[in-house]
């Protein structure tokens, strides 16, 4: 098996990995590096639970190969809190009770961080449209939108 060596900076830690090129970024994070915050829902780009930031932009880790990201900076939900200080979106999700089972939550939060950086959280309608890449089977949408609005309003 030919392996390709890459370096990834994940949540501030450098990782050098020798990977089979077929390994997705999601499997590299979960199975090789051991960060299971990004979830595997559909593994086909349809649900958003695997959302992470690559060089600051939100993407689906399940639909991209790890070897395509040599030298990239990746942020997962494990990298958001500063010690015991939660990221404002993590706190807002708790305050607004924006989850039930919590499976979609890491993806929702990473996606919302991407959304805020894109400047597309100016109304409820816009938040709903630009969060459409993250499904929530528990239907926590109203509280997810409220949590994002709280943080967008505070910025």
């Amino acid at each position, binding site marked *: 098996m030919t392996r390709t060596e890459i370096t990834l900076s994940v949540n501030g830690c450098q990782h050098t990995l020798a990977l*089979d*090129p*077929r390994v997705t970024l999601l499997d590299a994070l979960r199975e090789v590096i051991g960060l299971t915050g990004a979830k595997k829902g559909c593994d086909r780009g349809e649900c958003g639970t695997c959302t992470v930031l690559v060089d600051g932009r939100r993407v*689906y880790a399940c639909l991209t*190969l790890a070897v*395509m990201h040599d030298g990239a900076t990746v942020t997962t939900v494990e990298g958001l809190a500063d010690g015991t200080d939660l990221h404002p979106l993590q706190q807002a999700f708790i305050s607004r009770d924006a989850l039930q089972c919590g499976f979609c939550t890491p993806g929702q939060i990473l*996606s919302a961080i991407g959304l805020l950086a894109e400047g597309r959280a100016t109304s409820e309608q816009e938040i709903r449209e630009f969060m459409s*890449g993250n499904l929530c089977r528990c239907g926590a949408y109203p509280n997810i939108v409220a949590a994002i609005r709280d943080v967008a309003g505070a910025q």
Partner: protein
Amino acid sequence: MAPLEYLRPSDEGAAIALAEADGRACLLAGGTDVVGLLKDGVLAPSRLVDINALPIAGVEIRDGGLSIGALTRLSDVADHPAVRGRFPALAHAVLAAASPQLRNMATVGGSLLQRTRCGYFRDPVTPCNKRAPGTGCSAIDGEHRLHAILGGSDRCIAVHPSDPAVALLALDAVVRTRGSRKERAIPVDDLYLLPGSTPERETLLEHGELIVAVELPATSFAARSCYLKVRERASFEFALVSAAVALDVRGGVIRTARVALGGVAPRPWRARAAEAVLRGSRMTEATIAAAASAAVRDARPREQNAFKVELVRRVLTRVLATAGAGG
């Protein structure tokens, strides 16, 4: 997924040579279609040629039009002020495609060349003439609610899924390509083939031929263009039916019209009969109704997808009224 070789060349010549040298090589851009097809076992390349290190990303203003590098991500196309201001149908179509995460990954070149979402094509164990020529089309006598009403054949009725391609067609876009022996400029209107008896052949491109850029010419009709997509969810879903229209209206008379449809044919579909009705007419309700009917005059719906005929009429009625508003 079968084992494969991964290569990441940094110049165009090397990428083309690596792809041409291996008949089972596959170019990899955003990967959002390729990776899914690999997982499903629909694609089994021996070599992936990752083109992301090539310097072909970004939007440039050129000769009054735009040149969009093939690797430009869809989100960057939609955000570009010149796209939003001068080619609104493209901005609308891009924002109607997929989800924000996918648009951050997917490229313009990949969007044009993405494969059909036909469930039989994507399931490697069912017969499908497009995936395994000669095995038969499972959709014709199976589930075909989402399939083609125009341009299909008795071998294949799968639809092309791209939203951006429909807008690019209406805007007279041209695809610039490069192979080892030649460079070509192919109008999007000429890029796609109809399935006929060879549904496995989808475009004019040769194996290994690289799309370098998609060019939008300055036209009299691009500024008054728009895109409307109807789908089964409010967002993040492929089109049931979509339409891009572009109009040049002067003194109340339509001088030039472009009408393109998505979700209804094996390729982005140019509705020339509708354009002919519009040309030289005033934008009245009667003109709109005649154009909308002309677009589906040759439709050949099947049992489960007859609803698309009426849906095309209604989508065109709405989008023509929107584009025509304001004289």
